[in-house]
Structures are given as C-alpha cells and as structure tokens.
C-alpha cells in the first residue's frame, strides 16, 4: 500500500457520507479531483477538505430529503390533509356553537331562562363564530381551487384559522395550563393543515390540487355530520339527564350509547376515506397523522403527573421549557423522522422490485 492508496481510502470514507445518488454520479470524479489537488506526500485528507466534504455531504442529504418531499404523492397527501383537515376542523369549531344551541333549546324546552346559559360558560362571542367561519372559507377556497391564486388564498385562510385556534388555546394558559395541554392535539392539527396549505402553493399543482375534490370527501363530510350529531347526543345527555335529574325520564346511558355509535361510525368513515387514497398517498397520510397522534398520546401519558399536580394548586404550575420543547419539537421531529424512514423504505422497495424484474428477465427464456 502506498500513501496514494491510503489518501484515496480516506477520501472515499468521507464521500461515504454523501447520499448514494450523489456518490453514484460523482464519487469517481471527486476522488480524481481530490487526488489531483493533494500535496505531494499527503497521507490523509486535510482538515479544510474534511470540513468542506462533510458540509457539502450534509447539505446534499438535506437537499435529497427536501427533494423527496416534492414528489407527487407527497403533494397529493398534503392536499388530502388540507381538504379533510379543514372539513374536520370546521366540524370541531362548530361544536361549541351546537353546544350552546343545545343548551338554549334545553333551557327553553323546560321553560327556564336561557340567559343563565351564560353563567354556565357558553358564550356566543366573536371567537366562536370566527373559527368556523375561517375553516369554512378554507374549504370554500379549496373547492374553488383552480389557480395558484386560489391556493394562496386557501393557504392564507388556513394560516389565519390555525392562528385563531392557537390564540384560543393560548388564552387558557394563565388559568389552566393543563387545559392547554389537553387541547394541544388541536393546535398541532391546525398547524399541520396550515403548513400543508402553504406547502401546496409552491410547485406545479398536481391532479388533486387543481379543483378536483380528493376521493372520500363525501365520507369525510358525513363523518363530520356524525361527529356533530354525536356531540349533540353527548350534550343532550349531559343537559337533560345528568345536570337536571328532575327531568330524567329515560335511561341516561341511552344517549351515551347513541353518541358512542355515532363517533365510532365517523371514525370508520374517516378510515375508509383514508383507505380510498392510493397506497403511496395513504402511507404519507399516516406520516402526516403521526405528529397529532404523538401529542394525543404524549399528553395523557407523558404529562399525567403534571396534569394532576397542576390542578392541585390555587396558582397553576406553568409548563417548563423542557416540556414546551417536547410538546412543540416532538411532533416536528416525529414528522421528519417518519418522512425520512418512509422515503428510505420506499427506496428499498424500489430496489427490490428492480432486482426482481432483472431476475425475472434473466430467467425468462
């Protein structure tokens, strides 16, 4: 072995940090250039070369990952997330209005003064109207979405709607940090929809981002109606049978069972709507859903102690910086890791398919 061989091996070790596509295209060329640039008698890569190659390799890896996120399946998945997400958020934001309406009807039916509804915390204010109005406008912009301008309008509206959700939840922090945690999945979901909507502005609109509603939209709309109906059943149960036992005429559990059935039917419809997408889009939808799932699981399990302690004191315990980092960084890291893992998995599947195709062509007579 001479010094040249050792130096070349050193360069190749550094080049191994690059993504395989880059190595396949440029490794031999780069080794030639690096060896041409080497000083006589140089035995190993110089620190400046090491730094340059590592920085360039890291940048290439990031570019590769970002490039992968630009493929059509990701765009379609983002489009489905914005469509379905906005419809679901419209349903979620309509629930307080339905809650109040159910309470008023309940009071009126019993000849009670419905103004006492306000004492129970149901207040029809600007915020409770603004949220569904914004999500409804997002859905409208998406349905009319045929040009880049409409994509921009949908994105701006989605950002405003997400901001309204964040502002609403943040408003509870001073009095009840645990309530903020309980609703953090909603904030995460709204943020995800806004990010996906902004992402869709760039690039060439795909087939599903140019006006056509994604497959399964009707099922999602029905699911939202069922969620709202379940909410009404839930509210009716609470107002008619629990809080006002003197008017209880039937088994209170009946309405609970109705609500549970409606929620279950909605969940099944949402799953069918997701399954109607192609396999690559479906896999990406799972990646999009993971950050919300992580928050939904992290709060009751990871923050159980905090939630319990926070409610035991007159002055609520604030969320500390580490907990904020977990709440905000956890979903973001989950998305990035899941997206990279999916790209890696699909690349391996492509290799296997190519190998099988090549194998088949060799064996074929």
């Amino acid at each position, binding site marked *: 072995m001479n010094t040249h061989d050792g130096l070349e091996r050193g360069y190749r070790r550094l080049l191994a940090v690059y993504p395989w596509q880059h190595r396949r295209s440029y490794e*031999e*060329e*780069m080794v*030639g*250039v690096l060896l041409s*640039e080497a000083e006589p008698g140089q035995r190993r890569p110089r620190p400046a070369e090491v730094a*340059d190659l590592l920085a*360039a390799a890291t*940048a*290439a890896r990031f570019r590769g990952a970002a490039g992968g996120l630009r493929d059509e399946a990701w765009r379609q998945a983002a489009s489905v997330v914005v469509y379905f997400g906005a419809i679901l958020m419209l349903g979620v934001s309509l629930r307080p209005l339905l809650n109040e309406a159910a309470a008023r009807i309940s009071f009126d039916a019993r000849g009670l003064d419905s103004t006492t509804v306000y004492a129970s915390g149901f207040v029809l204010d600007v915020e409770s109207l603004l949220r569904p109005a914004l999500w409804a406008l997002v859905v409208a912009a998406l349905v009319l979405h045929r040009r880049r301008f409409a994509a921009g309008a949908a994105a701006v509206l989605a950002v405003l709607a997400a901001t309204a959700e964040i502002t609403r939840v943040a408003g509870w922090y001073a009095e009840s940090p645990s309530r903020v945690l309980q609703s953090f999945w909603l904030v995460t979901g709204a943020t995800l929809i806004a990010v996906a909507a902004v992402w869709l502005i760039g690039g060439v609109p795909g087939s599903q981002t140019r006006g056509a509603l994604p497959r399964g939209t009707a099922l999602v709309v029905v699911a939202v109606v069922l969620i709202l109906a379940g909410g009404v059943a839930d509210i009716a149960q609470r107002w008619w049978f629990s809080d006002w036992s003197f008017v209880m005429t039937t088994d209170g559990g009946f309405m609970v069972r109705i609500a549970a059935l409606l929620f279950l039917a909605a969940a099944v419809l949402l799953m069918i709507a997701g399954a109607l997408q192609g396999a690559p889009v479906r896999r990406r939808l799972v990646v999009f859903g993971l950050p919300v799932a992580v928050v939904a699981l992290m709060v009751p399990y990871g923050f159980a102690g905090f939630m319990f302690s926070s409610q035991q004191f007159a002055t609520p315990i604030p969320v500390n910086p580490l907990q904020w980092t977990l709440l905000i960084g956890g979903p973001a890291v989950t998305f990035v890791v899941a997206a990279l893992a999916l790209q890696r998995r699909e690349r391996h599947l492509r290799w296997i398919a190519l190998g099988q195709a090549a194998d088949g062509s060799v064996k074929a007579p």
Partner: protein
Amino acid sequence: MSDGSMREPTFLVLTALASEPQHGYAVIEDIARITDGRVRMRAGTLYAALDRLRTDGLIEVDREEVVQSRLRRYYRLTGVGERRLATETHRLRQQAGVAERRLQGRGIAYGGGPA
C-alpha cells in the same frame, strides 16, 4: 433555479464553463485564475454547485474520458445557462456602474485611492 441574484461559486463555475467544456479539476484551476487566486474552490463546494446547476439545467455533461484510470467528466453550459450568466453579468455590471459613479462623486478614483 430562481431568477434572483446568483451566489458567487455558481457565477464562477458558469464563467469558467463559458469559454469551453471543462472537467472538475480544470474548473477549479480556471476559477483560481479568473479570481487572481482569491478563490480556490474545494471539491465538495464545486460538486455541490455542479450538481445543482445540472439539476436546474444550466449545465450538462459534454463528454467523459478515462485518464490514468480516473474518470474525467467534461461539463458545458446549456442555452439556459448562457442566458442566466448573461443576465447575472448584466446585473453585476449595472451595480458596479452605480458603485463606480458614486465613488467618483466622492472623489475616489475607480480602483482604489483618491482621485
């Protein structure tokens, strides 16, 4: 690639390839000559620029050769690359012109010391 201003390594690589198709090491040498030795581009930076420029369609592979068992790939400017380089050159010349006039207005001779 956006139509915004170009980064210096990109501009230098396009300038190096504007005269004739060149391989990677020749581009490094040419850039050092163009900049009077001020810029000695390293391999990682060079190939990051070449990869980006190929992806954006500003350069393409001209030919490949094997010299002393090593692959040499020659790159050349595309029509899009020529137009981008021309646009950037015009932009830089305009800005340099403004700077020159203002320096002259302050009584400073173009190229350094006082007029």
